[in-house]
């Protein structure tokens, strides 16, 4: 029988931990670590956006980086080559472009399922990589675009690693909140139904293709946000950010953290960033080995990710038993 004091701790625990980890801790870290934390947050937004189609709707995409890249490149182009300045003008335009690309890609990719969907999403993002690499005048080719300015929010802010971090963090909070609304809505539940049994959903009256299409676009939108925040933080964007490795990394973060829960990929992002950080200190040349090893170990040992364990722990603390 759980002690009465354990209940409030368990109930508020995760939120307090999150606040500590994301709001308070970064202010206490040295600057180079704040930069690492920003990266974590940006990758978290990216991976969580993938979770909407992967964890909830059950669509395995190997081309999600396309939208991260489109958002980032659009943002960078508007700022560096087209002379726009204000965050409030540039961001909606970049997002609109991302959504347009997603609308097109969705029409192509959603004609097929499972294995072929995986291959088509892969081919689509690789095609974008090829275009970006070749169209040197516009996209800077293999070197990418650089000297991207800091966000112009209309109020004067001293942009340094801590203020950039909070900029990213606020983006995460806003995105997380919106994505949470989406998955907790009737539409969000319908995505889970689609994942479990498409014929049943159709028999119940759902236009399965349309729901998948909308989810695909929403997911791409948030990936684009991650891309935009990334360009502001990194000041450089290159074709690598559009490629297979980015997409695979997002998939890993989702699976490692626990898919089908939005907070799972958040934890996955924390774990991967920590692994990346410590590996860069102790084994710098072996980072790909560590990353690849993480992929392999995750599949072998934690096929459902970390989230189920944490969920059971939380249930036990709150309800006194591991089940719901």
């Amino acid at each position, binding site marked *: 029988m759980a002690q009465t004091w354990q209940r409030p701790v368990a109930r508020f625990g995760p939120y307090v931990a999150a606040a500590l980890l994301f709001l308070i801790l970064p202010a206490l870290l040295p600057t180079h670590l704040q930069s690492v934390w920003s990266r974590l947050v940006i990758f978290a937004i990216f991976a969580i956006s993938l979770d909407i189609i992967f964890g909830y709707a059950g669509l395995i995409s190997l081309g999600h980086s396309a939208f991260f890249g489109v958002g980032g490149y659009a943002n960078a182009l508007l700022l560096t080559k087209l002379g726009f300045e204000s965050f409030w003008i540039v961001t909606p335009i970049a997002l609109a472009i991302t959504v347009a690309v997603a609308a097109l890609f969705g029409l192509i990719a959603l004609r097929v399922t499972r294995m072929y969907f995986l291959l088509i999403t892969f081919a689509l993002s690789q095609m974008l990589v090829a275009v970006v690499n070749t169209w040197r005048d516009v996209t800077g080719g293999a070197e990418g675009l650089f000297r991207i300015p800091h966000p112009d929010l209309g109020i004067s802010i001293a942009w340094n690693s801590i203020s950039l971090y909070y900029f990213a963090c606020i983006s995460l909070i806003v995105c997380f909140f919106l994505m949470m609304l989406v998955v907790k809505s009737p539409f969000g539940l319908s995505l889970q139904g689609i994942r479990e049994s498409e014929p049943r959903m159709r028999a119940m009256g759902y236009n399965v293709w349309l729901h998948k299409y909308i989810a695909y676009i929403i997911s791409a939108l948030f990936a684009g946000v991650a891309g935009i925040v990334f360009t502001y933080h990194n000041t450089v964007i290159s074709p690598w950010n559009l490629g297979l490795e980015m997409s695979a990394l997002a998939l890993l973060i989702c699976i490692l953290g626990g898919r089908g829960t939005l907070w799972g990929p958040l934890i996955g992002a924390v774990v991967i960033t920590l692994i990346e950080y410590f590996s860069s200190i102790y084994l710098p040349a072996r980072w790909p080995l560590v990353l*690849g090893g993480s992929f392999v170990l995750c599949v*072998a040992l934690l096929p459902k990710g970390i989230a189920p364990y944490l969920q059971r722990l939380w249930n036990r603390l709150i309800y006194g038993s591991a089940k719901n």
Partner: protein
Amino acid sequence: MLTALSGVSFGSILFLVASGFSLIFGVMGVLNLTHGVLYMVGAYIGWTLAIQHGHNFLLAIVAGGVGAAIIGLILDQGFLRRIHGMLAQQVLLTFGFIYVLTNLCLWYWGALPRAPFTAPTLDWSFPLAGLQYPFARVVITLIGIALAVFLWWLQSKTKFGMVIRAGMNDKEMTVGLGINYGIVAAAIFLLGCFLAGAAGVVGSQLFGAHLGLGQEILLFAVAVVVVGGLGSIPGALVGGLVTGLVVSFGTVLLPGLAMFFVYLVMIVVLMIRPTGILGRAITD
């Protein structure tokens, strides 16, 4: 014409790689992303034996294949058989192995790329219609044809091939007939990996050995197999030829956009006929 021979020999190498990839996919339903890196490991092993130690080139080809097959054995028996049917996990696992193996190659062989090398007996060209055609490329094409014939013989004329075809059509029935499909599948996986490694050595005559090779070849292999047909050997041949020619002519006519067209073709095929030009539907 030189471009055409270039395209055909490139296509032949693609066929060598893609046939293994296609076999593994058709028989086991596994998308083995590690396939490209196995090619690369084979190329490195071949270099070590043929150039560093001066051994027979044929021996190098076999050694490359065996090395790749050993890695394949670990991958399949150690990991893949536990995640049968779980697509996302398969993708992650094989992708992880790409990183691991690439980094291990970096560790052992260093970052310096190995220039294209060939056996001394093949290192000459013959003149035809005013241009010099490298004999090595012709040999590569012949090896591709030989493999195609071998695989065709294996599939149609042997009992082993019959079992494979039966399994691809109806796995439950095959198992029900008392055939140990597990061993067959494992053998196919090893064969596929061997082909990848051996292809790496054969292809090293054109591409040498370097660390980016793994991913590059993978991208091509996927395109070839999708266009030609997942699980179809003739498809891998057709796909390989088409891709090889597209890239060869594309590099000459529109440099930089060759890859773009490869992916475009791939997407069009996936939209119109997902099982590929000569492929068959996967009974999931």
